[in-house]
């Protein structure tokens, strides 16, 4: 049981493991010792509770770090603090792609509707819609490419700062400074 708990503790961010890992393992061990003489049902309940707690706790910690990183990226406090747990948010790219796909599909649908009722909107309006559509279609990938490039440049700057060791300045005590 303890071996599994130890494995589950690896799901936590490194910083949390370093601060609380041995302590959490000691608490888990104490609980295991306390319940060792009891019925199987009580042991199973403890096991289920602790397993769920460890997995949930690890997810919450990762989420917390992610939120902190995003706050840093937007310079929330006016001060930039790089974190060890920094990861480029790949989920953002996926969401942006999905949104772009949705917008393009909506434009296509709109065009289909416009061409299916040519008599009501008239030939001039149809031409107008067609030109707006082509402008949007041409501009959208450009916008997307621009923001993607800006994101990449931003990430490269953050990565360079991280490599330079700026984030370690926080660990230096006032006396050392």
């Amino acid at each position, binding site marked *: 049981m303890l071996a599994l708990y130890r494995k589950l503790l690896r799901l936590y961010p490194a910083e*949390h493991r370093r*601060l*609380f890992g041995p*302590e*959490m393992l*000691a*608490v*888990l061990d*104490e*609980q295991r010792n306390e319940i060792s003489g009891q019925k199987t049902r009580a042991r199973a309940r403890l096991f289920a*509770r*602790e397993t*769920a*707690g*460890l*997995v*949930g*706790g*690890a997810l*919450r*910690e990762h989420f917390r770090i992610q939120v902190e990183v995003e706050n840093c990226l937007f310079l929330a406090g006016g001060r930039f603090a790089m974190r060890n747990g920094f990861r480029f948010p790949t989920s953002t790219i996926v969401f942006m792609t999905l949104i772009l796909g949705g917008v393009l599909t909506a434009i296509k649908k709109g065009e289909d509707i416009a061409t299916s009722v040519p008599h009501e909107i008239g030939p001039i309006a149809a031409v107008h819609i067609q030109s707006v559509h082509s402008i949007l279609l041409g501009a959208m990938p450009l916008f997307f490419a621009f923001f993607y490039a800006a994101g990449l440049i931003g990430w490269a700057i953050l990565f360079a700062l991280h490599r330079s060791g700026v984030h370690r300045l926080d660990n230096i005590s006032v006396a050392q400074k």
Partner: protein
Amino acid sequence: MTEPVLLILLSLAGQPQHGYAILKDVERMSNGRVVLSTGTLYGALRRLLEDGWIERFEEQETPRGRQAYRLTPQGRRNLQLEIERMKHITRLASLRGARQES
């Protein structure tokens, strides 16, 4: 403030405690209604440490030098405010409840 956090703070209000003692104390105080897992406890302790409501120190009496937690003055003040808030709500609930009964 959530109930588990309030119970953790109440557990530390009397005397400093280590992780396992907090778990057991919370369970005892809530008559077994709130049973914290180790993961939940340390998530809450971490947030309280970061907010400066509690502090960690090494127990000298134990041979292994176990880590223990105690309330900071800020944590004690916030706990007191929360207790006052709850007292007010309880008083209000009693008054409204009594008025409805009559």
